[in-house]
């Protein structure tokens, strides 16, 4: 159960002005004073964050830190107890087409009677008016995106007959086909093979060169410095955020993880290595 506050009326212009001031208009995503709670238990607490444009941003934190909830609350999939989110200075409803979302793989029923191409085409549904069937050019675009993730050969295959990594690639292709400016990805690297992981990384870098912003929930600390330019260290609240080289320090990690992981030292040494390279 989620605590709902009554919808805020953006009544007086002074208020609108003050809200505007809190949000960075140029930022692809800016979150202000966001709190999400299940019952009395806050999952996210006073989140303030403005994502830099055109960067690969990793969200890192321990289990139950609210990483997925952060993404869902940004996309209005989970009601917020307080706070607001702006995309390029506008609320989500106005910017829907600019935002792509890759949910966790477990969130859907893979026995669904659909082929890989069908699933990718679903990424275009938001652009097709109601009651209008899928157009040929949308299907062509979907096929093109499948090619981009190296899955064109599997276009007609039923989705339960794909491996975990292939399913993840299909999801990525589905996000690509949305042609968004900002991508939210929920654990895209979870349970995929090494080849897929590499393919995803290459894809992320390509998106970056196109000036897109990717916000990725990530669980493997060791690869963070290699994959992401920016990190957000999250544990209910934002412990630290900023460029990876400055933020992904062992001190910050200890603050995030409460000093319980031996992995931390490895991760810190990975940062150090990156610095010397």
């Amino acid at each position, binding site marked *: *159960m989620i*605590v709902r*506050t009554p919808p*805020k*009326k*953006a*009544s*007086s212009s*002074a*208020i609108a002005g*003050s*809200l505007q*001031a*809190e949000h*960075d208009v140029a930022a692809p995503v800016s979150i*202000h*004073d966001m709190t999400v709670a299940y019952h*009395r*238990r*806050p*999952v996210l*607490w*006073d989140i*303030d*964050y*403005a994502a830099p444009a055109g960067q690969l941003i990793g969200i890192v934190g*321990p289990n*139950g*830190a609210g990483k997925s909830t952060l993404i869902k609350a940004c996309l209005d999939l989970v009601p917020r107890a*307080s*706070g*607001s989110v702006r995309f390029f200075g506008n609320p989500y409803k106005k910017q829907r087409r600019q935002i792509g979302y890759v949910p966790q793989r477990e969130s859907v029923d893979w*026995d669904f009677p659909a082929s890989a191409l069908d699933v990718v085409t679903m990424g275009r549904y938001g652009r097709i008016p109601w009651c209008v069937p899928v157009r040929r050019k949308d299907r062509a675009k979907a096929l093109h995106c499948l090619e981009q993730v190296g899955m064109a050969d599997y276009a007609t295959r039923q989705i339960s007959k794909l491996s975990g990594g292939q399913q993840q690639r299909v999801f990525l292709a589905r996000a690509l086909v949305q042609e968004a400016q900002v991508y939210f990805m929920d654990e895209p690297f979870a349970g995929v093979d090494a080849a897929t992981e590499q393919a995803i990384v290459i894809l992320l870098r390509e998106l970056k060169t196109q000036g897109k912003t990717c916000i990725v929930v990530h669980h493997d600390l060791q690869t963070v410095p290699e994959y992401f330019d920016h990190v957000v260290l999250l*544990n*209910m*609240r*934002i*412990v*630290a*955020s*900023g460029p990876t080289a400055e*933020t992904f320090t062992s001190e910050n990690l200890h*603050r*995030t*993880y*409460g*000093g*319980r992981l031996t992995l931390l030292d490895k991760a810190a040494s990975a940062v150090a290595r990156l610095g010397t390279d």
Partner: protein
Amino acid sequence: MARRWIDILNCPTRWAQSLSRKSHSSAFWVGLVLCLGITFSLVRPCNADQGEPTSATHFDNAHTGSQADGQPSTSHLLIRALTLRDHRTRVVVIGTTLLGIAAGVIGTFAYLRKRAMMGDALSHATLPGVAGAFMIMGTKNLPVLLTGAAATGVLGVLCVAGLRRIPRIKEDAAIGIVLSVFFGIGMVLMSLVQEMNTGQEAGLNTFIYGKAAALLVQDAQIIGGVTLLVLLGAVLLFKEFRAVCFDSSFAASQGISPTWVDFLMMGLVVLTTVVGLQAVGLILVVALLIIPSAAARFWTDHLVVMTLLAGLIGAVSGWIGSTISASAPRLPTGAIIVIVAGCLFFGSMLFAPHRGVIASLARRWSIARKVALQHLLRALAECEELADRGKTIPLEMVLPKRSWSAAQLRRLIQRATRLALLERSSSSSLQLTTAGRIDAERILRNHRLWEMYLIKYADIAPSHVDRDADEIEHILPVPLVQELERALLDSEATPPSPHGEEGAAR
């Protein structure tokens, strides 16, 4: 006010809890003895006035039609029914009450095992058994028909279990398939029986909608026997049922085979369903399995209490339902019992003290109010930190602190002023009173201690943090709070507000 109300509502639950704490199974034994007593009291008069089961009360009877003329008043009938004056009423009321107990108790386990709707498939699957047994044996002997019903009922349960193993068929579809196809088979057999016209088939239809009014002493005795069996099973297998309901794989690792426990559990459900066919019919018998246990769940978190309560709710539904239906014409008994149970369910859902909807809405509303006030006070305390203590704080300084609208803020300030926590020095600025300042500083300290806790001990249990707790000391041990305070003092060099930090990171 609300709390007193909750306390009163809580009374029976607490009583039952203390009872169950004293001894787990004593309550069951009490129930067992009660049931035995009721059954015997039922058997005795049957020898006295058997053969003349006519009733003065109005049990709905489609075949005899309504007798509107020359009937005594409803209230008179209600009293007759309540006092169990007539033998027929006595049989029906006792039979349905016992059925309610059995269904409530075994339904609790089925409900917790998430097998609630399985009962629906099962009850529909008994129809081909009834019709088939009649076709083959050519007799309306009740034990024969019920044996047939139990046989196909078990077959139906096995079919659901088998279908569920096929990856493309999910559980809900498996239940729907068994339910409709078995019922179809049953209907085909029934229609054949009817066309064969042996003159004996009348009455088989009662299995579909039930005919509590036609319950005979023999039926009630069968129900009583099954109730005893269910209670015995629940007492003897309580540990196993609980283990499997909670975590079947762990139970398996402890040497309790979930397959066998499920088999026994479903066996008891089948028995209850089959004897319930006569009373409430196969469509509604599932209601007696689900509704009492779902209603009991609202009142308690304790399995023993829940089982007892479910039995009680089932019994009350059976008793009140059959009494009501005896007191007015054209009220089908089974349906009335289910409606009574439904009312009890919705009553529980709304009014139960902790899990109830009204209680939790009230709780949430008061928390939201409290939190809003705390936000205001915290914002003011932060403002005071920046400005000087005791100075007036301009509204423009408070407004951007949080994402509240001007109207919300105005309402909050009004409320705080009423509570004498702050004063408005002018239309656009305000000032904390002494009491307000004490509160505000306490809230700010709590907040910062929590933040410090999250930073230092995040690995312990961030999900257990109840940040709106009045005092952090109520949640965390005092030495830990002291340590946090020291850490807070040490960290004076770094800005204490997380928002400042974000600004730097940006």
